[in-house]
């Protein structure tokens, strides 16, 4: 393992990454404390967009595209349709701050989870990336599938059945929505 003080090899937080994380966490906190649901949905959309930019910084362009289209786009649309069909609560309180009890429980949860953070590998030097499976995909994707984007190759070829299962989940969800809403067509 890398010595904890061998800092030159490790990546430290850049200004861009720090700004993005601050933006994303800020949006999440705003979403958590606002009572106006429309405001929460807008904060969640901004949050999703920030997360999509983080995926680009972490060199995951496929995930970023999906997050921007599905997370910031489709999900936001679904939430907006829902409050258009239901209600946006209006009362005097604009903020929803944690009570003492829930604040303590939240703090305990974060501290327990946070105590595992120092045991994680430094960012950029994770053992996952040297794994046999990852390396196999990177070495053989081109000759076996003739697709240069390895993520596409894995999604559509190596783990094709997984993607079929995903399509089944989406289909089931579509049917479930129609059944729950007692309708026969979406539009």
């Amino acid at each position, binding site marked *: 393992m890398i010595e904890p003080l061998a*800092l030159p090899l*490790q*990546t430290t*937080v850049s200004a861009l990454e*720090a700004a993005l994380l601050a933006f*994303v*966490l800020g949006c*999440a906190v705003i*979403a958590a404390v606002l009572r106006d649901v429309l405001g929460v949905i807008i904060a*969640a959309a901004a*949050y*999703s967009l920030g*997360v999509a930019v*983080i*995926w680009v910084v*972490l060199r*995951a362009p*496929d*995930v970023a595209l*999906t*997050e921007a289209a*599905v*997370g910031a786009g489709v*999900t936001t649309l679904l*939430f907006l349709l*829902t*409050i258009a069909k*239901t209600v946006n*609560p209006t009362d005097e309180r604009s903020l929803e701050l*944690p009570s003492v009890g*829930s604040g303590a429980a939240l703090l305990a*949860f*974060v501290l327990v*989870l*946070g105590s595992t*953070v*120092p045991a*994680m590998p430094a*960012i*950029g*030097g*994770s053992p*996952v*990336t040297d794994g046999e499976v*990852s390396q196999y*995909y990177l070495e053989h994707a*081109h000759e076996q599938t003739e697709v240069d*984007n*390895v*993520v596409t190759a*894995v*999604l559509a070829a190596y783990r094709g059945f*997984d993607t079929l299962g*995903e399509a089944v*989940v989406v289909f089931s*969800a579509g049917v*479930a*929505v129609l059944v*729950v*809403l007692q309708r026969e067509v979406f539009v």
Partner: protein
Amino acid sequence: MILESLLTQYNYVAVVALLGIGLYMIVESTNLVKKVIGLNVFQTGIFLLFITAAYVEGGAAPVLTNEAPYVSPLPHVLILTAIVVGVSLVAVALALIVRIYGAYGTLDEDVLREVRANE
């Protein structure tokens, strides 16, 4: 130690914070729509854990026309699947919420509990 974590393991610190915020929204919000948004935030925290684990310092996106080294493609594929499954989950949850509103006329958890107790 905390400062060192912030400098070299900042994304994992953010993961913990996002999981905390998401769980808080799921448990503490009385509005059902906000609970679903909390579910989304919690989920994205897990995604950040996976995508960070795939990252290689100085690595390129896993497209073979780029120069090696590449970041690991496998967590990206898993998270792509998870995003799509997540949106399916949100769609069904929101459909249930629309039906609950149709039946009870409220989306507030506390009011809903009272109405159901009086039935």
